[in-house]
């Protein structure tokens, strides 16, 4: 699924570097210039044909959430890859060298955001979200987005950071284009209107992602919430970290962390079997309904 370098980096064999800093302090940490874009396109896009595919103007990929992809049978295809609007600007700037288009990454760090989400939501709330997600999947709702059910947690904390990056990029170049999800555009405009006059550090804007402490949390609860959230957001954690037996979060505040460190991955599989069961049932139901429509029930 991933490049060899990611595997080696996770396992600790290779002293790998990222093209941009994963914990940005300034705008210059996130900008892709011509050289870095060349590295990205010729290195990762071409080097990992399982994930990426290049067309003349588009990039095809299979990263991101499942709910973004509209077809139900997407993962059962032999080469499951779809058009990706967020990765195409890299290819466009790679093809048009004379225009000198730099690309800039404007979302918050994913791991920090997940930690914030898990710490600020209770287990019951997350289970409610999972139910509504499952119902929407079962009904075949194409435009369902998890973030719209709780915009005060999923969308609004990110806006300050994104608006700040757009504002700082105004000082670098006069003509900018921002490619964002369509649900976010309105919120971004509202945040833009309320911007203060002074430039902020990026770390100051990320302070919003520190959740308020509501007493101690047990580590098993923390892990279970991570599993539920991961099931709804495309199994990003599982495919990138848990599969390679690494735990990316720092949970020394939680209760019982030191006792459970050695059996994290066993417990992860246990919780995944419990909560992922809903998804399986739904897929089976979908299969039965389709069979009933086609008239294949009596034959077997």
């Amino acid at each position, binding site marked *: 699924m991933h*490049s*060899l370098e990611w595997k080696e*980096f996770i396992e600790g064999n290779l002293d*790998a*570097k*990222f*093209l941009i*800093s*994963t914990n940005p302090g300034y705008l210059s*940490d*996130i900008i892709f210039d011509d050289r870095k874009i060349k*590295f990205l396109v*010729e*290195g*990762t896009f071409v080097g990992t044909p399982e994930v990426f595919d290049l067309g003349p103007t*588009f990039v095809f990929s299979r*990263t*991101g959430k499942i709910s*973004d992809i*509209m077809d139900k049978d997407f993962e059962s295809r032999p080469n499951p890859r779809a*058009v990706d*609007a*967020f*990765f195409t*600007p890299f290819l*466009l*700037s790679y093809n*048009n060298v004379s*225009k000198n*288009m*730099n*690309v*800039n*990454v*404007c*979302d918050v*760090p*994913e791991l920090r*955001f997940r930690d914030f989400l898990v710490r600020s939501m209770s287990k019951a709330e997350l289970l409610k979200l999972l139910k509504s997600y499952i119902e929407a999947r079962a009904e075949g709702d194409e435009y369902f987005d998890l973030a719209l059910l709780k915009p005060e947690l999923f969308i609004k904390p990110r806006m300050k950071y994104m608006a700040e*990056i*757009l*504002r700082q*990029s*105004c*000082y*670098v*170049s*006069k*003509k*900018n*284009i*921002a*490619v*964002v999800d*369509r*649900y976010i*555009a*309105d919120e*971004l405009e509202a945040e*833009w209107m309320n911007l203060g006059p002074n430039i902020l550090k990026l770390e100051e804007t990320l302070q919003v992602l520190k959740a308020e402490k509501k007493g101690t949390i047990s580590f098993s609860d923390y892990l279970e919430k991570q599993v539920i959230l991961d099931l709804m957001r495309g199994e990003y954690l599982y495919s990138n970290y848990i599969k390679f037996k690494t735990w990316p979060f720092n949970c020394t505040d939680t209760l019982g962390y030191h006792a459970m460190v050695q059996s994290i991955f066993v417990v992860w599989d246990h919780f995944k079997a419990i909560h992922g069961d809903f998804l399986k049932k739904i897929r089976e139901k979908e299969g039965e309904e389709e069979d009933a429509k086609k008239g294949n029930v009596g034959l077997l």
Partner: protein
Amino acid sequence: MNIAKSAAFRILRVANTYSHAQRAFSTKSNLEEYFNEMFKKYEQDHANDPETLAKLKKEFQEKYFKDSKDSAQSVAKPKQEKPTENTKARTQRGSSKEKTQRKSDSFASSQEKPKQAEQTPRKDTVKEKIVQSIPKNFVIKNLIWPPTNSAVLVLGVERRNPLHCSFMADLITESDASMISVQLSPDDPTFIRTKGNYRKGNLISFLSQTHYAFIRVERVHRRQP
């Protein structure tokens, strides 16, 4: 503010190409509408010479509308237009191209520019064209930061929608934007630096991979004293 206007005109150009292409290749009856629109441009250029206009219309009728007689009437409708910001900008932009065209055309050697009073309001048609060409659920917003006099054009996109993606690609290639910000998180595993980056830098290493495999490439781990 000029930046916002220029961006809007680029969208307009993309929109025009889309709508024309759709009309041209859909049905035969729509071809007539397409040529009618083409005639409007000629009317603007040669408003003072009714003779050249009549010649042009005859040529087009003989070429494309031999079967239908009604089309000649539809083509010959003159329209009055008032000057707007859009038309002004168009004439300013395309001035150099128009000059070259006029020189090449035999019947358009010495013309004056059309009078402003004869033009009709063109704003509504332009708006309709833009709205028709933008795909469904596509959001465009223009944010301005006055201290540096710079603008951000926010494109609200569905990530997996191919129509949105193609429209976005057209818009980016048409514009002169020097910075594009994309909604991706910086700790995404795709942004790791791969070994291929190091390998492809050397010509010798490239050759050793392909034809000249006998050349050995060894990495220097330590600095020599």
